[in-house]
């Protein structure tokens, strides 16, 4: 290949200790682009349909895209893909920081980790030198302190993806942590590493990335930076990052999750908004590779004496308002505790919110939550901290909570307000009055997450073609993941998607059009869906339902009912979505015709086999 890609995939088998490399063919690159698309294809092809997500047959694939590590704006995204321990279905999560560039500088587009190690180990990659090393010195280490220790041992120029005690203890929603506070948080990808006894992946590279047309790329990247800097929202983004959304979400959208999504408005929300946080705790900005937006905020809480990257919007929502906590320093502290333990802040906040509500409803007893807890209520930081530790170490009630909100609710009989889709806890956008966003959550490829599509502003502006919009977003937003860049410069600063296509062409020497690129995005979306069909016998449209709470009034709300999206309306919208997608309206899976159209004919045999098991 002429540029953009390194053309190499590294494969490491932790059972046999075999380490090999293989070529990434241009054909494959052109078929899925890279990063998330490529990792999804490898996971689809290689993980057997009956693989236990916590067993050695599961794999974890870490992949970069053709734009990763270049001067393209915010080019620092890596995607991890595997079979999710939370859902048995498709799992994927991405992380920024400096991992993607380092892996490419080491000479690899992707790493496939298979098998499982008997002893705790870590993977060390330095250009052509690849080793599986003993990790006993890091056993039980937190994500943040463990990364420091590893950098002290290996050098500060090594980039590290690490898991914490939660993953070592196989908590279902463990995250992969990098760069002292960035995470591939969702769908339990960290759990897969934990189950493989893989504590960390440490990478150091020395190489550069080839470019087909340097002059052209030069023009494109300068245009991107110019457009970003000239955008009226640029300064606000640098100052506040995603926390800018807290106020807007709370007051305008009414989507700030509050007390386990009982409401979308937190009465004390102004205490945890962007300006308060910047003034009280932010020390400096912290960006991912080649990103001018610097949405990461590095904070110091005086009252708790800790430093933490964040909290960002999701964490303020899930560990703040969703738990009734209105003190920004307390949220920063809980963020720190959660990060260090290696739990996903979104899932952890969701699970704990559920537990507090269940306790208040009398579904859990004092004895069950433990004597060390003085009961449970909204707004109690100390109790939340205790629960986080119980979860990560699977102590007492933590054993149950570690399984995720779906299982918790099945045991407690509290399904009606278990805020998840497909077993993945819903992230920080209360959506009961937002049809397109509900559809986005319902049909998101990993379960309750907003990465694939986020349509809440579209809803608020009264957008009409909801199903069409969700589909468009589910192609373009993950498209940025496929390219190996962050989508935020496009979402927030309006950097044109065409420029990314041009950059791809300048790097690779291809002459891809927007239409061709969108066809690949659609192919990748269908393959993500097919993963569910292959791995989950009996998969049907029921999997795309959203929680019952989202068809009901806000708790304590007196607003007229008419703007609620009823189950009937949701079903209608879902059917329309399937029709537009060319998916079966009962199974919710791509039709054979659609699969053939997209060059995914090889999927059909797997879907047939899976149907036989129904």
């Amino acid at each position, binding site marked *: 290949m002429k540029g953009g890609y390194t053309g190499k995939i590294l494969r490491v088998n932790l059972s046999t200790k075999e380490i090999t490399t293989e070529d990434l063919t241009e054909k494959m690159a052109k078929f899925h682009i890279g990063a998330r698309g490529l990792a999804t294809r490898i996971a689809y092809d290689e993980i057997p349909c009956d693989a236990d997500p916590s067993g050695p047959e599961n794999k974890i694939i870490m992949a970069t895209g053709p734009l990763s590590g270049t001067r393209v704006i915010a080019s620092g995204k890596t995607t991890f893909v595997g079979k999710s321990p939370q859902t048995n279905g498709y799992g994927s999560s991405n992380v920024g920081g400096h991992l993607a560039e380092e892996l490419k*500088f080491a000479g690899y587009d992707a790493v496939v980790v298979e098998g499982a190690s008997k002893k705790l180990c870590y993977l060390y990659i330095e250009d052509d030198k690849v080793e599986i090393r003993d990790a006993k010195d890091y056993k039980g280490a937190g994500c943040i302190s463990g990364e420091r220790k590893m950098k002290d041992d290996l050098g500060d120029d090594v980039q590290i993806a690490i898991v914490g005690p939660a993953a070592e203890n196989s908590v279902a929603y463990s995250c992969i942590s990098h760069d002292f506070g960035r995470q591939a948080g969702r769908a339990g990808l960290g759990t897969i590493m934990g189950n493989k006894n893989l504590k960390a992946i440490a990478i150091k590279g020395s190489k550069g990335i080839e470019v087909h047309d*340097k002059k052209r790329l030069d023009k494109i990247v300068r245009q991107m930076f110019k457009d970003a800097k000239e955008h009226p929202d640029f300064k606000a983004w*640098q100052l506040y990052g995603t926390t800018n959304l807290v106020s807007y979400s709370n007051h305008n959208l009414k989507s700030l999750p509050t007390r386990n999504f009982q409401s979308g408005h937190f009465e004390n929300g102004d205490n945890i908004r962007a300006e308060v946080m910047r003034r009280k705790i932010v*020390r400096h900005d912290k960006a991912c590779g080649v990103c001018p937006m*610097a949405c990461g905020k590095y904070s110091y809480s005086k009252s708790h004496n800790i430093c933490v990257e964040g909290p960002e919007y999701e964490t303020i929502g899930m560990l703040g308002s969703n738990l009734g906590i209105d003190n920004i320093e307390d949220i920063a502290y809980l963020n720190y505790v959660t990060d260090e333990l290696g739990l996903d802040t979104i899932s952890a906040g969701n699970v704990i919110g559920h537990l507090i509500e269940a306790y208040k409803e009398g579904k859990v007893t004092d004895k069950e939550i433990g004597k060390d807890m003085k009961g449970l209520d909204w707004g109690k930081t100390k109790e939340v901290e205790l629960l986080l530790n119980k979860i990560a170490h699977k102590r007492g009630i933590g054993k149950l909570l570690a399984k995720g909100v779906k299982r918790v609710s099945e045991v407690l009989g509290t399904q009606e307000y278990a805020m998840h889709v497909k077993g993945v806890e819903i992230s920080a956008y209360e959506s009961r009055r937002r049809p397109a966003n509900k559809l986005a959550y319902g049909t998101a490829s990993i379960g309750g997450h907003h990465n694939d599509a986020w349509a809440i502003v579209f809803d608020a502006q009264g957008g009409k073609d909801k199903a069409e919009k969700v589909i468009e977003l589910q192609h373009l937003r993950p498209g940025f993941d496929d390219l190996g860049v962050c989508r935020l410069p496009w979402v927030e600063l309006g950097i044109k998607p065409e420029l990314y296509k041009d950059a791809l062409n300048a*790097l690779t020497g291809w002459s891809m059009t927007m239409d061709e690129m969108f066809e690949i995005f659609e192919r990748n979306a269908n393959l993500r869906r097919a993963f569910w069909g292959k791995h989950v016998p009996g998969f049907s449209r029921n999997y795309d339902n959203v929680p019952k709470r989202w068809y009901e009034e806000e708790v304590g709300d007196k607003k007229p009912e008419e703007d609620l999206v009823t189950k009937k309306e949701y079903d209608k919208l879902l059917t329309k979505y399937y029709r537009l997608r060319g998916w079966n309206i009962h199974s919710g899976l791509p039709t054979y015709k659609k699969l053939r159209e997209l060059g995914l004919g090889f999927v059909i045999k797997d879907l047939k086999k899976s149907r036989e098991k129904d």
Partner: protein
Amino acid sequence: MTKGKKLENILSIKPKDNFEELCSGCGTCEAFCHAAHYDTEGKKKSAIKISGENFPVPGGYKCNVCNQCGICAKECPSDAIYKDKMIWKIDYDKCDGCSDLEFPICVDKCPTDSMHSHPDEEYPIKCDGCGECVEICPLGALEYKTKQRVVGK
């Protein structure tokens, strides 16, 4: 792009005094430095280096970039480092990369750790004051030093 006009007045490139508050660690400066001087995209051949050794506590980034002190020129056994306007540059006809040593002498002797060697490059990597990093830095954390300090007052 080398800013020929500016070069006349530039004494060196320097992190601003409040660099620790400003720098986000994005490494955009490194990426543009690397790309301005070599064929590939990357960061590893950048003459400016950003590092975050202080994480997690207290956090903050550090910048190593040449202050054009000229010690490298004094130490170079081949007299390969010369002054162009106010900037010290490597004469690649004279430099032999100290091929008999593990590190070039200039890299070894640089008092601010701002000269580098790279396994694939014959010659050491040195800031030539082109200003790519200053121009692109999105947080405005870098600046040109344009006025000489009064020495020995």
